[in-house]
C-alpha cells in the first residue's frame, strides 16, 4: 500500500503509472493483460463515439483524429453495406459494447468487495485537485496527460529489484490493480474523459444517470479543453535527456549493423502478405493501361514491393523510378530525367511548367511513347508541395504515362484537392507490408538527436579545419563564451560589440570590418546564427547543443 502514499503525494503522476504497469504485466501474465486492456479500450472507444455526437468533426478534426476515424466507421455502417472487406478498420471497434458491459460488471463486483479502498483514492484525489487548480478541471486533466511516468522512472532506475518484485506485486495487490486499472481507463481517454468516468466505473448502478450527465457536460467542453491545453505552453515532462543515459550515440552504420543483427520478426507472415500483394501485379498493369493510376498505402515499406513490380513486369518497358524519400529530389529533377533520358532532349527550360508543356506535347504527338513512373513516397517532404503535386498530377493525367506511387504519411491524402485527384485518377490499393522502412528513413534526419550530434561535430571540425587560425580562434572564443553561459536559460547570445571587444583583446582582429567578414563566412557555413535583440543589438549564437560544443572544444584543445 505504499503506492497509496505515492499517490497521495503526487496525485498527478499516479495516473500514469498503471499504463506502464500494464505493459510490465503483459510480460508476465498474458491472461491478466487481456482482461485489463479490454475494458480500457472499450471504454475509450465508447468515449469517442459519445463525443462524436456532440462535436462537429469538421472543426475538431485535427485535435481528435480518432473521432474522425470513428466517424468514418460510422458512415460506413450507416451506408448499410458493410461488405466485410471494405471495412478494414471496423473490426478494430467491434468489441465495443457487449464485452464492456460484462467487464464493467465484473469490475464493479470486484470493487464492491473493497468499497473503502476504491472510494478512498477518489476522495483523496478530488479535493487535492480542487485545491491546486480550483477554477477548471479540464486544465488539470491536461496536466495529467502530459506527466511522464514518474514511478516508472523510479522503477527503472532499479529495474532488477522491481522486476523481481513484480510478480509478487501483481499477485498480492489484485484489488489495487483493479482500481489502478480503473484509473487508467480514465487516463487513457486522456483529457476528454473526466473523473466522472472513474466514478461511474466504481459505482455503475447508483450513479449511472448522474455520471452520464456529467459526461455529456464534459463533452461539450471538449473544444474549450483543446484550446486550454494548447494555450498553456507549460508541458510537464521529465527533464531527463539522452545525455544522462551514458549511452554512446549511434551513427548510421552501426545502426544498420545492429539492425541487421536483430532478426526481423514474423518474416514468414510478412512474406505471405507480400505474396498476396504480388498476385495483384497483372491487375495493376491492366488498370494502368486503362488510364487509372495506382496509389499504394498501408503500414510498412512499399519499396520492395514496387521494386518487385518493376523487375517482374516492367523489365521491357521504359520506366522511371523516383525515390521520393531522397532529401534532394525535386520535381525539376524528375522532369529533367524525363526530358533527358526518356525523350532524349538536350536543352533547358525556363520553368517546370514549360518543361511540362513540352513533355505533354511530345507524348501527345507520339502515341507510341509510353512511360511508367514509379514514385516511392509521393508524400515526402520534397514532393508534397502544392506546385509539385500539381505538376505530377498533370503528368500522370497523360494517357501514355502510367504512374504507380506509394504514400505513407497519415495525412497524405490531404495533399490533393478535387481537381488534382481527378487528374491523378487514383485507384487505391491497401498494401500493408510491415516491412521496415530501411531506405526511406535512412536519408531523413529523423533519427532525432541520436545521430545529428555526431554529424554536427564532424562538420564543425571539418569546416573549422579549413579556416585560418585566427578565424578558429574567433570561433573558439564564441564557443567558450556560450559554454560559460550554458546554465543561463535566457542567454541571448554574445552581443557583437562585446565580441568585438574580446576579439581585439585576444589580438584576433584589428577592425570591426574584419570581424564582420569573418562572421559572414561563419554564417554561410551555418556555424553561427545572428539574432537581433529587443534593443537592436546583434547577438551571436552557435546553433549546436552544449555537449557537442564541449566535445568540439576538447578536440580543439588537443590539436592546439
Amino acid at each position: 500500500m505504499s503506492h497509496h502514499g505515492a499517490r497521495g503525494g503526487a496525485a498527478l503522476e499516479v495516473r500514469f503509472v498503471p499504463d506502464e504497469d500494464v505493459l510490465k504485466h503483459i510480460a508476465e501474465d498474458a491472461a491478466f493483460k487481456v482482461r485489463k486492456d479490454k475494458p480500457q479500450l472499450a471504454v475509450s472507444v465508447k468515449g469517442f463515439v459519445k463525443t462524436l455526437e456532440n462535436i462537429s468533426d469538421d472543426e475538431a478534426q485535427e485535435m481528435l483524429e480518432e473521432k474522425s476515424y470513428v466517424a468514418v466507421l460510422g458512415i460506413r455502417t450507416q451506408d448499410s453495406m458493410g461488405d466485410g472487406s471494405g471495412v478494414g478498420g471496423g473490426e478494430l471497434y467491434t468489441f465495443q459494447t457487449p464485452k464492456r458491459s460484462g467487464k464493467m460488471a465484473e469490475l464493479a463486483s470486484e470493487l464492491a468487495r473493497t468499497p473503502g479502498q476504491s472510494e478512498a483514492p477518489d476522495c483523496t484525489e478530488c479535493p487535492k485537485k480542487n485545491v491546486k487548480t480550483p477554477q477548471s478541471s479540464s486544465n488539470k486533466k491536461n496536466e495529467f496527460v502530459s506527466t511522464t511516468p514518474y514511478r516508472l522512472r523510479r522503477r527503472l532506475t532499479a529495474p532488477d529489484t522491481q522486476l523481481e518484485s513484480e510478480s509478487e506485486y501483481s499477485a498480492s495487490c489484485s484489488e489495487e490493480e483493479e482500481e489502478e486499472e480503473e484509473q487508467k481507463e480514465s487516463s487513457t481517454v486522456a483529457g476528454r474523459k473526466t473523473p466522472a468516468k472513474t466514478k461511474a466505473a466504481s459505482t455503475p448502478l447508483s450513479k449511472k444517470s448522474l455520471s452520464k450527465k456529467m459526461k455529456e457536460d464534459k463533452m461539450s467542453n471538449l473544444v474549450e479543453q483543446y484550446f486550454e491545453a494548447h494555450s498553456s505552453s507549460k508541458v510537464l515532462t521529465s527533464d531527463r535527456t539522452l545525455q544522462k543515459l551514458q549511452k554512446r550515440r549511434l551513427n548510421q552504420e552501426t545502426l544498420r549493423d545492429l539492425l541487421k543483427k536483430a532478426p526481423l520478426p514474423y518474416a514468414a507472415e510478412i512474406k505471405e502478405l507480400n505474396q498476396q500483394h504480388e498476385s495483384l501485379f497483372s491487375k495493376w498493369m491492366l488498370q494502368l493501361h486503362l488510364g487509372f493510376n495506382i496509389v499504394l498505402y498501408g503500414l510498412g515499406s512499399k519499396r520492395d514491393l514496387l521494386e518487385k513490380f518493376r523487375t517482374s513486369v516492367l523489365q521491357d518497358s521504359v520506366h522511371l523510378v523516383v525515390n521520393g524519400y531522397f532529401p534532394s529530389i525535386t520535381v525539376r529533377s524528375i522532369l529533367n530525367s524525363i526530358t533527358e533520358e526518356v525523350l532524349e532532349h538536350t536543352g533547358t527550360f525556363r520553368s517546370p511548367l514549360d518543361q511540362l508543356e513540352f513533355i505533354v506535347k511530345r507524348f501527345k504527338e507520339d502515341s507510341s511513347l509510353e512511360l511508367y513512373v514509379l514514385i516511392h513516397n509521393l508524400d515526402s517532404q520534397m514532393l508534397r508541395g502544392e506546385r509539385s503535386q500539381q505538376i505530377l498530377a498533370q503528368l500522370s493525367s497523360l494517357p501514355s504515362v502510367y504512374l504507380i506511387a506509394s504514400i505513407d504519411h497519415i495525412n497524405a491524402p490531404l495533399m490533393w484537392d478535387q481537381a488534382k485527384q481527378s487528374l491523378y485518377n487514383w485507384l487505391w490499393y491497401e498494401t500493408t507490408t510491415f516491412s521496415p522502412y530501411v531506405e526511406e528513413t535512412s536519408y531523413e534526419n529523423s533519427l532525432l538527436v541520436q545521430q545529428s550530434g555526431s554529424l554536427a561535430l564532424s562538420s564543425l571540425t571539418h569546416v573549422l579545419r579549413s579556416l585560418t587560425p585566427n578565424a578558429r580562434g574567433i570561433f573558439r572564443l564564441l564557443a567558450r563564451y556560450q559554454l560559460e553561459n550554458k546554465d543561463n536559460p535566457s542567454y541571448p547570445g554574445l552581443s557583437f560589440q562585446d565580441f568585438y571587444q574580446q576579439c581585439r583583446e585576444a589580438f584576433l582582429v584589428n577592425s570591426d570590418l574584419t570581424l564582420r567578414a569573418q562572421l559572414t563566412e561563419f554564417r554561410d557555413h551555418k556555424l553561427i546564427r545572428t539574432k537581433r535583440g529587443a534593443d537592436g543589438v546583434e547577438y551571436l549564437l552557435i546553433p549546436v547543443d552544449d555537449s557537442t560544443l564541449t566535445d568540439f572544444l576538447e578536440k580543439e584543445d588537443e590539436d592546439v
Partner: protein
Amino acid sequence: QQIQEEMNKQLFDNLVSFLRRSHSEFQEKATEWTCRMKSREIPTAALVLGVNVTDHDLTFKSLSEILQNNITPYVASLQAKDCPGIKNLMQKLMGQLMNCYVDADSSEEEDCAQVSPNRIRCSMTSLISWYENITKKTDSETPNRKRTSSRHLQSPPVVVIFKDMESFTTKVLQDFIVISSQHIHELPLILIFGIATSPMIIHSLLPHSISSLLCIELFQSLSCKEHLSTIIDKLLLTTQFAFKLSEKVLQVLINIFLYHDFSVQNFIKGFQLCIVEHFYSQPLSVLCCELSEAKKRVNSLSHSQCENIRRLPSFRRYVESQESEKQIALLTSDNFLKEAVQKLLEDLHVYHENYLPVLRCLHVFTSSLPKYPLGKQIRELHCACLESRVWETEDYESSLQLARMLNKSDLVTMLQKCVEIFVSSSGKDFDKVVEKLKDFLAQFQKLEGACQEQGESISSQKELQKKTDLYHLQKSLLELKESRRSKKLTKFEVLRFEVVDFIDSLVKNYLVPADHQTLHELVYFSRAGALREHLNAAPRVALHTALNNPGCYLKHQALRSDGGSLSNKAPDVCIVYKLHLECGRLINLVDWLEAFATVVTAAEGPSGDAAVSDQVDDVIHARFIRAVSELELLGFIKASKQKTDHVARLTWGGC
C-alpha cells in the same frame, strides 16, 4: 481482347453521351451571345457551374469547341494558376490566340512562326494590331477563305474564358478588365467567367467601378444531379448494355457522388472501374455481351468454363429445382448445359426487357406521391427493386395506399404515360398490358358522364331533406351515413382500385430482384467492397489497424488477440506506437526508450533480465531508433525544439 474491345466501346459511349449533353446545353447560349455583341460594355457571361469542380474542364472544353465551330475562331481559356500577374495573363492569352489562329488557317503558318509567342512583347496594342491584321486578311482573302469566315461573323469576337474565376487574384482581373474596356472598340472582346459558388462572387471580387464596365448575363448550367440521372438513365436503365450493376455497387457509387464530390466524371470513373473489375475477376464475363453474340460464345465454351458455370450459386439453385434426370444431364453433359445456358441467357434478357418499362411505369406512379415513399428519383426506385422484392417492403405498401387516393386527372395522365412507356418498349409481353391500360382509360372516360349524373342525384337528395324538420334530418343523416359505410364504392373508386391492383400485379410479375435470376452473376457486378476500397479508400484506418492490431495482417499465433489489446510480441513499431499513445503533447525520448526496452526485454523472456540491468541493449536501442523514425515518417511525431530530447506528438489526443 474481345472483352477489352467491348469495354472500350462502352467507355467511349459514356463519354460521348456526356459530351453530347453538354453540347446541346450550350448551343443555345452560344447563339445568345452573338446578338449581344454590339453593346458598349464588355459583354460578359457568368456561368454558374456548381461545386463539382472536376467536371468543369470537360464542360469548358466542349464549350470552347462549340464556340470555335460556330461563332469565332478566337477562343482563349485561362486558368488562375497560369496567371499570377497581368503580364502572365496577357502572355498566355496571346499565345492561345495566336495558336488558334494558326489552327484556323494553316496557310498563315510561316507568319506566326516568325514571331514565337514567347518573344513578342505582350500588350494590348500588339494584340489589337494582330487582330486588325488578321481581320483585314480574312476580308481580303481568296473566296475559299471567305467561305470559312462567313460562317463566323464579319468581325469575329475574341472570347476569353476564365475557367475558375474565384481563384484569380482580384488585381489581375481588375486590371485586365480596365485595360480591355479601353480597347473594346478596336477589339470586340467577350469574357466568360466560370463560377463555382454563387453569382454574388462577381460583385464581391470586383468593385462597382469595374463591374460597371461589364455587361453581365448569368447562365446556369445543368445541376450535376441532373447529369447523373441522365447518365444512369442512359447507361443502366437500358437493355443496350449487357453489363449491369448490383444494388450495393450502385449505392456505393451514388453515395460517393452525393457525399463526396458531386462529380459526374468520378461517377463515370467508378463505373469504368466496375466494368474492369467485373471482366477481370469473373471468368464467365465473356458471356456479358449482346444476346446473339453471347449465344455464339456459349457454343464455344471450354470444359473448364462449363465447370465454372456449374459452380455459380444461381445456377446451382436452378439445377436443384429441376427433375433428377435433368439434373444429371446438366451436371455431366457439356452440350446439354450449353443449350440450357442459352435458354437461360435468353430468359435473362427478356427479364431485363420487361423489367425496365415496368420500373419506369412504377416510377411514374410513385414519383408524384406525397413524401415520396419510394424515392423521388428513378435510381432510388431501381435500387429498391434490386435490393429485395419491392412489394414486400413497407414503403411499397404505403405508396400503394397513397396511390389508392389519387384523384382522377392525375391517374389518367399517369396511365397515359404508362401506355406510352409500354408502347415504346420492345417487350413482347406488353401488348396485353397496353390493351388493359387503354381499357382503363376508356372506362375513366365513360365515368366522366356517370359521375355528373351521380352528383345531381345526390344534390337532389339533399334538397329533399332540407324540408324536413330537425329530428328527421338527424335521423336521415344517420341513415345516410350508415348507407355510405355499407354502400358499395363509387364506380370511380372501384376502377381506381383495379388500376392499382393491376400495377401491383405488374410489379410482382416483373420487378423480381435480379439476384433471383439464374446466371445473374454473368452480367451483374456486385463486389461493392472492392470498389469502395479502390475509390474511396481509408488509408488512415488501414494504418491505424495495422499499428493497433497487427494480428489483422500478420496471421501469427502470438499476435492473435481478442479485444484489441496488443501483445508484447508485436512488431516494434506497434509497441512504440502504443506507448506513444499514452503520452501528451511532448514525449521524452528517454522515458520512451526505457519503456520500450522494458516491453521488449520482457517479451524476449527472463533470460534477458541480466543484460538490461541499467543500460539498454544496443540492439534494442537501434530497434527503438528505427521504430521512432518510422513513426516520424508516418507523421505521428516530429522533432521538437521545445525541450531537449523531446518529440512532439502530432496526432489525435495531442492535447
